[in-house]
């Protein structure tokens, strides 16, 4: 339990942080150390196990399906890192207490810092690669938020995004690498993975996996060519730089390399990729550090260089080099964190970090100066300080690396050169800041020593530098041994942590570096002049430019594809349909099935030809809208006749009634529209469209022909057999609609109802100005409701209703039913609207159409639900015959009540649709004001609207 607790506590702390923030900086700082202190206490009991080379494992199941478990592992390596994270973490918290100003959002700061701590601990303590991956990415995300802590600073925001992009992107690569490893091993548990080293290395995907993992590690640890994000991350508050970007997070990549060392290292690919990357980074970082005038810039590039050094060591692949790498991790963390803190103090006290302005601080803050100088000396590799020890080991390893031929010279030369630069920039950090004349133009003058407690963290770290430097075995010996053994997977080799190894080549290299560095610093003006000849690359600007231009290109591409042209979208849809159907249909070809063709009946064929001609003519004449409308009515009429010809009386009636309503609707709409369509497409486009249309038409023809000539049997036999006995009706189509597939019908009337409601809502606030006259230049006539039509329409209403009632009642047994009856009723009422006007008719209709629709739906649903009471499923129908005296035998079918619901819904919906459109007519509005009182709020708001 202790390990997950160690990881979890900081997160809990983070959640509590805003609470404590109300108590002020001291309160929150104290509270924030609690998780770390508990964690240290929790880890302490395990020390003995680890010192004996043991491992502590705590595993809980989480998501076995993907191989993710909450398994935590404490061994030497993770302990080393955990201690760094915890101890430096405490120091940072203390430091930040004084660094941050009271008015800053300390709750957010400490919360994020604790989140970071938790996830960093998660990385080093995870014993499951996927779990580690999760924490890995959280550190990137939290780092993003911390770098941009001062969100008002442009540099901070940009630096944060760049860091996130690089490390997050690397994280994705790492994820891929880990997943491949997981696939090879069959498990993500560290034990399994580390044990499977040989299998992994022999696997065909090893090169890919390694490359991906290295991408993850190198981005995180700012290795060339991904190093550029780190200096820009220095926009973060200094505690963040010290903690994340020197001591811990950037070491995560190195931790990963060490963690996976047994699984991945020891191959040529590992050697070349890791060590050369490290080498380049080492040199490059050191070189750039020399020329940075910004204190934190210098430190950042120095960090890059030192990270390169560690990576190079790990890449060497020898056991001793690994020990050296881990040793340097400790040493770098201590001296670099203290240097960052010192830089932060200087920044805090002088108001600037520009070394060209900061001079001679020795006089103002001797205490801080002493501390910083010791730490810088350690960074330079001055004996008796910890930096010296690991650097010596590094020099020794660079010599031990036997590259073939002249290449053998490369590592030692690079190492020495990097050493020279390191001494030079360390010298600059000391001389240029604390001596070198007087300060120039400081924003805060004179600078003072910082608050007492702000220096304590620095003192502790500097003290550690000295202790490790002078008593390495005593101070870190056991920890380093445990860590090395855990990394290598075998007991660590014999090595000596002595202050001096005698006069040897590495010592000579150190001398060379030391004096070379001093010489270089003394000649710095020349070097600066040389360096100034090259334009400095502003990675942030480049990054911004790249992201911006990517965004621009993406936007252009999107605008070019998603161009808002319906014509294109429809074309794509139709072409897609043609494309997918093409292959099967072309395989089938022009196919006439075994049933063959029946002889042509000439009158039908003639009318068929008229249908075809009308369809094509509609397309051809579509620009003359009214004409096209008449033509499409012909199509509709002939379609209805087709249904008569081929045995579908119900369809005929439905088609005819729908046709009438559609025509009225289109007439209503056309009133507001231009009466003609301009030619908008080029000739080529029209030919293209004709081609597409022709293809679609031919396809449908071929398919229809194939279908019509195939033999066929369907489930419909059942409907024919059970219509009368089971459904109580002889009109099988109607029985299907209200009984066998009554649920479809319920859906269908819902569609009608929804459409009506949608139309009503859509037109509610629509103001349309009709053109003053028809397209030929005639103004519209004044007369609105001609006598003749009025006089005929009125008696038509009861007569049509009678027909409608008849069609409705007979529907179950003969062609007809609720739909058709509903449409007849609707058309009869529409006729009243046309003949006598909107308000006249509205005044005479007692019920709001909303309620008619709702009532219809309710009837249908309730009839269906009625069967539930008898234990039967929804929509189970029942029917029976009762005999009344005189009247005779009557059939009573529940389906009829259902159909009544259909009827009402159709009447309500159809009328609502058409009337909503009619309502927007300016003439309706003017006259309808009289009838306000009898109508709801909708009518009033609508009618008060004047035309534009």
């Amino acid at each position, binding site marked *: 339990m202790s390990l997950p607790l160690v990881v979890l506590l900081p997160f809990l702390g983070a959640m509590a942080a805003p609470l404590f923030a109300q108590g002020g900086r001291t309160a929150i700082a104290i509270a924030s150390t609690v998780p770390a202190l508990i964690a240290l206490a929790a880890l302490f009991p395990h020390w003995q196990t680890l010192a004996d080379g043991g491992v502590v494992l705590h595993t809980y199941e989480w*998501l*076995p*399906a*993907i191989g*993710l478990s909450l398994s935590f592992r404490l061994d030497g390596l993770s302990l080393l890192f955990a201690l760094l994270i915890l101890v430096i973490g405490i120091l940072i918290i203390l430091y930040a207490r004084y660094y941050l100003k009271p008015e800053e959002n300390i709750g957010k700061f400490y919360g994020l810092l604790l989140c970071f701590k938790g996830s960093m601990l998660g990385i080093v303590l995870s014993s499951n690669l996927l779990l580690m*991956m999760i*924490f890995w*990415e959280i550190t990137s995300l939290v780092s993003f938020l911390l770098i941009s802590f001062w969100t008002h600073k442009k540099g901070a*925001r940009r630096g*944060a*995004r760049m860091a*996130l*992009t690089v490390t*997050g*992107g690397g994280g994705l*690569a790492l*994820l*891929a690498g880990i997943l491949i490893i997981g696939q090879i091993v069959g498990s993500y548990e560290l034990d399994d993975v580390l044990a499977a080293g040989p299998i992994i290395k022999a696997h065909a995907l090893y090169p890919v996996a390694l490359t991906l993992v290295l991408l993850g590690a190198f981005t995180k640890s700012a290795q060339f060519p991904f190093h550029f994000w780190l200096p820009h991350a220095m926009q973060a508050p200094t505690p963040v730089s010290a903690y994340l970007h020197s001591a811990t997070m950037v070491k995560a990549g190195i931790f990963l390399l060490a963690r996976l060392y047994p699984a991945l290292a020891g191959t040529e690919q590992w050697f070349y990729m890791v060590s050369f990357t490290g080498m380049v980074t080492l040199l490059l970082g050191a070189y750039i550090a020399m020329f940075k005038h910004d204190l934190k810039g210098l430190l950042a590039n120095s960090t890059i260089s030192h990270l390169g050094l560690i990576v190079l060591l790990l890449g060497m692949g020898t056991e001793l080099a690994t020990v050296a790498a881990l040793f340097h991790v400790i040493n770098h963390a201590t001296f670099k964190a203290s240097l960052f803190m010192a830089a932060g103090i200087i920044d805090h006290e002088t108001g600037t970090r520009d070394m060209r302005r900061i001079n001679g601080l020795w006089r103002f803050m001797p205490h801080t100066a002493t501390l910083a100088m010791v730490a810088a000396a350690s960074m330079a590799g001055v004996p008796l300080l910890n930096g010296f020890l690991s650097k010596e080991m590094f020099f020794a390893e660079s010599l031990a690396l036997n590259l073939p031929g002249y290449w053998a010279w490369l590592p030692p030369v690079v190492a020495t050169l990097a050493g020279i630069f390191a001494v030079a920039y360390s010298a600059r950090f000391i001389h240029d800041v604390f001596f070198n004349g007087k300060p120039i133009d400081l924003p805060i003058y004179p600078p003072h020593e910082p608050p007492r407690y702000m220096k304590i963290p620095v003192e502790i770290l500097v003290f550690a530098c000295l202790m490790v430097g002078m008593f390495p075995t005593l101070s870190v010996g056991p920890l380093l041994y445990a860590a090395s053994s855990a990394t290598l997977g075998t007991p660590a080799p014999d090595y000596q942590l002595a202050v001096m190894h005698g006069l040897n080549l590495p010592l000579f290299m150190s001398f060379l570096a030391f004096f070379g560095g001093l010489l270089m610093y003394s000649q710095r003006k020349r070097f600066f002049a040389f360096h100034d000849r090259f334009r400095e690359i502003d990675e942030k600007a480049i990054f911004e430019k790249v992201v911006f231009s990517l965004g621009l290109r993406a*936007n252009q591409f*999107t605008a070019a*594809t*998603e*161009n808002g042209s*319906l014509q294109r*979208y*429809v074309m794509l*849809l139709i072409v*897609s*349909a043609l494309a*997918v*159907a093409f292959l*099967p249909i072309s395989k*089938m070809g022009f196919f006439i099935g075994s049933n063959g063709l029946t002889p042509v009946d000439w009158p039908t064929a003639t009318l068929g030809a008229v249908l075809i001609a009308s369809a094509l003519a509609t397309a051809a004449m579509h620009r003359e809208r009214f004409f096209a409308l008449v033509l499409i009515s012909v199509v509709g009429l002939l379609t209805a006749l087709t249904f008569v010809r081929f045995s579908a009386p119900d369809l005929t009636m439905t088609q005819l009634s729908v046709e009438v309503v559609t025509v009225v609707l289109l007439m209503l709409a056309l009133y507001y529209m231009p009466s003609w369509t301009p030619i908008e497409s080029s000739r080529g486009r029209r030919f293209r469209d004709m081609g597409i249309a022709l293809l679609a038409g031919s396809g449908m023809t071929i*398919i229809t022909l194939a*279908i019509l000539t*195939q033999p*066929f049997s*369907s489930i419909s036999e059942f409907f024919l057999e059970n219509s009368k006995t089971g459904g109580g009706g002889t009109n099988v189509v109607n029985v299907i609609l209200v*009984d066998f*597939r*009554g*649920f*479809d019908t319920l*859906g269908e009337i*819902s569609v009608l109802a929804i459409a009506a*409601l*949608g139309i009503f809502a*859509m037109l509610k606030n629509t103001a349309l100005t009709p053109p003053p006259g028809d397209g030929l230049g005639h103004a519209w006539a004044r007369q609105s409701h001609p006598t003749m039509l009025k006089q005929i329409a009125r008696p038509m209403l009861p007569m049509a209703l009678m027909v409608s009632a008849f069609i409705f009642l007979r529907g179950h047994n003969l062609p007809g039913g609720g739909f058709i009856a509903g449409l007849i009723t609707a058309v009869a009422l529409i006729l009243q609207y046309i003949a006598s006007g909107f308000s006249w008719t509205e005044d005479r209709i007692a019920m709001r159409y*909303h309620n008619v*629709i*709702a009532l219809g739906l309710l009837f249908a*649903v309730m009839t269906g639900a009625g069967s*539930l009471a008898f*234990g039967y*499923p*929804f*929509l*189970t129908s029942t029917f029976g015959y009762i005999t009344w005296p005189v009247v005779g035998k009557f059939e009573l079918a529940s389906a009829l009540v259902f159909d009544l619901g259909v009827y009402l819904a159709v009447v309500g919906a159809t009328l609502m649709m058409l009337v909503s459109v009619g309502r927007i007519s300016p003439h309706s509005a003017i006259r309808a004001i009289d009838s306000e009182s009898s109508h709801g*709020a*909708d009518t009033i708001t609508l009618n008060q609207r004047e035309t534009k």
Partner: protein
Amino acid sequence: MTHWLLAPILIPLLGAILQIFVGYAPMPLRRVLAIITSVLTLAAAIILLNLASDDTYRVYAMGNWQPPFGIVMVLDRLAAMMLVLTASLALLCHLFSIGGADEGTRQFHSLFLFQLMGLNIAFLTGDLFNLFVAFEILLIASYGLLMHGSGSSRSTPGLHYVVLNLVGSSLFLISVGMIYSVTGTLNMADLAVKVPQVSGDQRFLVEAGGMLLLVVFALKAAVLPLTFWLPRAYASATAPVAAFFAIMTKVGIYGIIRVYPLVFGANAGEMANLGMNWLFPLALATLIMGVIGAMGAQTLRTLVTWQLVISVGTLLAPIALGSQKGLGAALFYLLSTTWTVGGLFLLIELVRSQRGSASDKIVMAPQIRHRTLLSSLFFFGAVSAAGLPPLSGFFGKVMILQSTTSGVEMAWLWGTILTGSFFTLIAYSRAGSVVFWRNIEGNIENSTPVTPLLAISTGALIGMSVLMVAMAGPISAYTNATAVQLLDTRGYIQTLQTPMVEEGS
């Protein structure tokens, strides 16, 4: 035959009918009734989820007619999962809407509930034509909802959406006709029996029908090249509607998952895995298109609409590959992405309401009120959407990546998904940092307060990704079992044998 299967259909339907009746009643009453309906629907969905977890199929024969003759509702794990997903999304969007977005027309709540009903029918039905009807219900309701709200910006995208879907409906009918013309049946289980038996030239008819159906589903799912209707339609919708529409593309995906493994699955003989070889590259292309769109987005809304497209590609690629693991992974991701994107839509509305004329444009503006709350929510939403740990999007993507093992497909899938995530990350970080951090002097007038109701409904949707992580074990077990159930078609075919309710029983 348990009547519970009716509940997710009848509850919203009756609720919608009630809304029509009370359309002129005071707003609070309408809102209370509407929310009660949504809550009850969610409760019913959860009950069904509980039922479905025992891996048996539950069949509800409408009208007590034996399948394949009557229409059946079939409850399996997939259906139950989709129901819960939809009902939870709907409830939260609905809650958000009563914060004021439901004003303007009296039809909002009934349309909303009708759409919920249509969705639920689509997820439950075991009948191909009834699926068409369900699609029409949810589409017509969606048309209405899309047009809800004031302003003139939505009529054109709405028109595009409607016209394309109407063409899609025509294709659906053509496809049904082709399949029926050979098999003579509409019941999906019966189709699963009949389709493999089709031989000779008739096969091509069914094949072409099946491919057209795929186009229909691809249109709903906004698969490339049928993607382009989506961004503007969603970008112009009212926030709760746009958020609720996060489920709409999933309906297309649902259609593919429901129909293809069952009817054109491994057992379909010569038609086995019909169309999946087309679907895979198109899914990847869709993903890429989505990423490009997100990269180029100039408003937060657009960014998130393209996120929808990205998730469609991410979902369909493993589905096309057809492995059980991939299917399970996709289902897990489907849950995650739907909630997250829904939440982001709501969030953006809150952001928009604080930014005056800057609206949701990715440009600088004076600092907004409630910045911490809104930016934190955005951060979580973006993390989950981009598929970064520790939120559920990451888990979904990991599962999807894990589902492929070596081969060209793996390279393409991994490469596309991971590269896509990378660029998405860039897009989100840019958008978020500009909108929330890059402030200019001044303050915004007319910013509407973020009420607790709005914040809670938004937070809850985005927070679902946290919940999913906490419950990742059971949820992934569920989705994997769903995939197993989907790929073993025998159980579904068995639904044909469901006994009917006899007289007196």
